[in-house]
């Protein structure tokens, strides 16, 4: 059996020796856990995120924000959901019904499928695929056709323009994002996310990848900004630029279809932030603590909870930054957007790859921390 499988799967197979559970093949448990993760995590997050974003917006703009439904309007998202579901299912007459229907589904599928490879904790990961990072990069590209088709299907100039912009933008920013992931791959030598996270532990010597060397620090920012662009967030939200295109690609969408678009966008943001966390911020690793020491004493479930807590904590910090930016920065022009991608980020990302390679070669793969410690303790300390 491959190394990091689902925690439930492992422990269940341990607990249920001899019972009929044991006869159930492992991938069933993996699938079950995957579904659990998605439906217990992705959809609620999408809901709550709307509420949180509105609250943050209110705070930044010195308003109160939603405060009617429930205490502090905490159930606002439920109300929104109900409203969306109960709205009329409207398809523009000149539009293309079939594409109009499948487009939002593509978006949601593309963004939710990314969850499968996210390591929430050391053993709590739906499928720790051995091409995890690449898998996420690949599967999230399905979003682009979704948006494009949706924008086309709703017979509307603004929608089409938004869709074209969005597709161009996503396709372009795929490149710096992928290029800025490569340094991490260089360091960890594996595409497997669990592996990448494990190597950022305190005990393995080098700390989070952000601080591995100067280039990863740059790469971190490039990945984050590129992620913003890929998820059509401000300052890159040209596809749904209210001031130019009415509401961009989802102008004609209403009701649950619009809900799906919104959900897809939020989940995509979450996946991006989770990706950033996993690759650069050490995933579920606790800073400065060697969790394996406690492994003996604590029950594994508690460990899993701690790790999940830290993972989600980091991720939500990133998400908060994203929302914060939304209410802080102005929007770019199209030429500025493309210029930033092709003239700015792609060259820097390439430079990063080169620099990281040189660093790995020069310091035998030690992080800045190790190099510094090695300097102080005299002689390179290679773990």
């Amino acid at each position, binding site marked *: 059996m*491959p190394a990091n*499988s*689902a925690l439930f799967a492992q422990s269940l197979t341990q607990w249920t020796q001899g019972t009929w559970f044991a006869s159930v093949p*492992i*991938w069933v448990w*993996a699938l079950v856990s995957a579904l659990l993760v998605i439906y217990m995590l992705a959809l609620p997050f999408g809901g709550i995120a709307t509420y949180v974003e509105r609250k943050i917006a209110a705070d930044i703009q010195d308003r109160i924000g939603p405060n009617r439904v429930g205490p502090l309007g905490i159930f606002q998202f439920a109300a929104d959901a109900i409203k969306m579901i109960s709205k009329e299912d409207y398809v523009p007459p000149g539009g293309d019904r079939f594409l109009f229907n499948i487009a939002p589904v593509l978006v949601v599928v593309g963004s939710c499928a990314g969850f499968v490879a996210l390591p929430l904790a050391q053993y709590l990961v739906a*499928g*720790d*695929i*051995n091409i995890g990072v690449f898998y996420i990069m690949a599967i999230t590209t399905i979003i682009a056709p979704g948006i494009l088709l949706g924008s086309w299907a709703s017979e509307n100039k603004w929608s089409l323009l938004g869709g074209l912009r969005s597709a161009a933008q996503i396709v372009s920013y795929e490149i710096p994002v992928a290029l800025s992931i490569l340094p991490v791959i260089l360091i960890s030598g594996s595409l497997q996310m669990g592996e990448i996270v494990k190597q950022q532990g305190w005990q393995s010597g080098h700390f989070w990848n952000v601080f591995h060397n100067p280039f990863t620090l740059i790469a971190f920012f490039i990945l984050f900004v590129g992620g913003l662009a890929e998820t059509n967030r401000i300052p890159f939200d040209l596809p749904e630029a209210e001031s130019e295109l009415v509401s961009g690609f989802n102008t004609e969408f209403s009701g649950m279809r619009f809900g799906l678009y919104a959900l897809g966008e939020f989940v995509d943001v979450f996946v991006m932030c989770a990706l950033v966390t996993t690759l650069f911020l050490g995933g579920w690793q606790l800073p400065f603590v060697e969790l394996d020491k406690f492994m003996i004493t604590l029950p594994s479930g508690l460990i899993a909870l701690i790790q999940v807590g830290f993972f989600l904590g980091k991720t939500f910090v990133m998400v908060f930054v994203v929302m914060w930016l939304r209410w802080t920065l102005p929007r770019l022009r199209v030429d500025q957007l493309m210029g930033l991608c092709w003239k700015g980020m792609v060259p820097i990302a390439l430079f990063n790859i080169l620099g990281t390679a040189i660093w790995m070669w020069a310091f035998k793969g030690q992080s800045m921390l190790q190099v510094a410690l090695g300097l102080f303790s005299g002689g390179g300390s290679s773990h």
Partner: protein
Amino acid sequence: MNLLDFSNSIEGYLLVSSILLTLGIFSVLTRKNAIGILLGVELILNAAGINFVAFSKFHLAALDGQMVTLFIILIAAAEAAVALAIILRFYRLKQTIDADEASLLRN
């Protein structure tokens, strides 16, 4: 978890690839639209790729077939880019992309 360790037979792959090839040829032949022809070509390329991958697992149990498929995919990408550029150019020239109109060199 590793999605890769399942055993199955090669015939399925071969059947699928042959069907893809046939459909590709069909759409290449019957489309008036240049883009349609391009779609057919993509189908054909995929059929070839499936074949290579299948044989690389079931016949060689080695990596070579997959390498060839990798190159096929890359070349397909380049081909698509150039073909679509040509189509856009042609459209700008003739205001249509009917492949039969592209016959300036006739006779």
